[in-house]
């Protein structure tokens, strides 16, 4: 006797998804895992698949190096100074672009794209040519300037979008209950635009922290940031673990960016900002 069969939707296996997941995991996660493993390997001799001895020996050794500490403080102070200056000059400008009417507003707004039309390193070399005459090569403030220019586009465009995203009626309602324009900005506009602006500031800090090419071209050899130190470790340091530990240290700001700014980046507006 034949059993009554009811139609059941076939279970589709997402082979494409599994394929992408496996390949991308191998190509993107695995290399970073290897670096992470190296950072915690006291001994790892070829051809063993796993380190012979795990431990924190090289963390102590790396953190005992003066050049590492100099690089850390240089990188952090550079990133803080650049982010601060960038915020101070860009956020009011972003507010003006978003809310005020002035001659040339549109063309000035798009002028921040000027740097995007040229290959970056070529531009850096052209700027370095100018800096050479101004004695800004090998100078902290020279590096600040060149990194500052790199932050302008993000620090203006993202906050402009944030300010424009604030409902004008909210601001008008605040005026209506008696708030002065300054108070409206402080109590309504800024808190409303805050999260997006915060993400822009964080991204600026992180991007500046990792900015290598300007720092290398303008700053070397006097100014050694962590990425620049990392290059010299890769080129000249025979002990693998130093580089691995520095890589893990170096990744910390990115980790915070990953935690807090991911939403901004995954949102479509970020990609559209790149012209998609």
């Amino acid at each position, binding site marked *: 006797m034949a059993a009554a069969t009811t139609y059941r939707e076939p279970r589709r296996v997402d082979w494409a998804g599994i394929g992408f997941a496996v390949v991308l995991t191998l190509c993107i996660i695995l290399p970073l895992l290897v670096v992470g493993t190296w950072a915690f390997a006291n001994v790892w001799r070829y051809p063993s698949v796993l380190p012979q001895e795990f431990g924190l020996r090289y963390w102590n050794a790396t953190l005992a190096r003066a050049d590492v500490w100099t690089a850390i403080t240089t990188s952090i102070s550079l990133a803080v100074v650049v982010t601060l200056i960038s915020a101070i000059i860009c956020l009011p400008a972003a507010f003006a672009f978003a809310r005020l009417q002035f001659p040339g507003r549109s063309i000035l707004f798009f002028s921040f794209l000027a740097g995007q039309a040229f290959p970056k390193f070529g531009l850096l070399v052209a700027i370095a040519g100018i800096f050479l005459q101004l004695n800004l090569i090998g100078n902290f403030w020279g590096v600040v300037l060149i990194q500052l220019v790199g932050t302008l586009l993000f620090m203006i465009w993202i906050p402009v979008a944030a300010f424009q995203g604030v*409902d004008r009626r909210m601001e*008008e*309602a*605040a*005026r*209506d*209950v*008696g708030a002065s324009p300054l108070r409206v900005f402080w109590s*309504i506009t800024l808190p*409303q635009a805050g999260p997006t602006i915060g993400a822009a500031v964080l991204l600026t800090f992180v991007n500046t922290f990792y900015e290598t090419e300007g720092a290398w071209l303008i700053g070397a050899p006097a100014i050694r940031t962590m990425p620049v130190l990392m290059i010299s470790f890769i080129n000249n340091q025979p002990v693998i673990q130093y580089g691995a530990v520095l890589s893990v240290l170096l990744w910390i700001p990115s980790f915070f960016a990953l935690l807090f700014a991911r939403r901004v980046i995954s949102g479509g507006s970020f990609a559209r900002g790149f012209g998609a």
Partner: protein
Amino acid sequence: MAVLDIKGVSKFFGSAVRAVDDFDLTVGNGELVCLLGPSGSGKSTLLRMIGGFETPSAGSITIDGDEVIHLPPERRPTGMVFQSHALWTHMNVFKNLAFGLKLRRLPADEIRRKVEDVLKLVGLTGYGTRQTHQLSGGQQQRVALARSLVLEPKILLLDEPFASLDQHLRERLREEVRDIQQRMGITTLFVTHGQDEALSMADRIVVMRDGRIEQVAAPDMLYREPATPFVAGFIGTMNLIEGEVKGGKFVRASFSHPLPIADGPAIFAVRPEALAIAPATGEGAARIHRVTDYGTHGLVDLELPDGTRHKAMVSEARDWKAGQPVTLAPRAFAAYRDNAVAYRSSTAS
């Protein structure tokens, strides 16, 4: 308790657009006046000028005799409720309501008492700690109203506050707002494009068109005695038949009716419920194009021989059928000439 006086207020955008054109209106103490008009009629612009969000190109706005036209919104004794509620989403309900009081540097316990009172007034007792996104659309609009009321403004301005709500909620809030407004006796100006809203709430209605006043009247008068063909067509349904008067008779195609005014063009206005129809033996004045049965009554679409369509209300739809020739007998009507009433039948009800 305040009187709002608007004199000669105009707002031009550029040189061509006159959003509000030489507007005069006095809103009496405790009165609720509705600004009614199609979109683009300038009613919202006028309201925003009273609130201080737009600068008039000319004119004067006084509240209790004090000129406010040069004051920014924060220094005007007006409270505005916006269409999109415009609650501050980064503050909870209490903070939304307390913000204006804090700006006035009131002591904390007085702020708390006032906020609790106003929450009770709008029926949201105990909602102070809620975040705005946790509220329903109706509750959000109540909070927006409370935010204005808590400051006890002299003039309350409402800019289509119920537009984003569904029909049922809109009707309930309408009654609530009217109750609160009457209890507090607060002078109120209300902008809407829905005639139901205006007719059910207002003491007086200002019908606006292209930045100008078409008519100011109490709701019942507006329906019964519209001053212009525009108002006649905008409030309720009105058959507006354009034709000629010749020798005391209005004529349009096969329709004619005595009209004791001088010869010349005129618009003959008759409401569907005032247009009686009867079966014609011959050609008749019009032919029935379609009959719609609404149960309680029927609506008959009539077609004149020149193709123009008009409506008549009948008590029983099943008595009529499409294609039938009928005669027309207006029971009450008006005639307009040069955008003004030229004649109104005495039986106008």
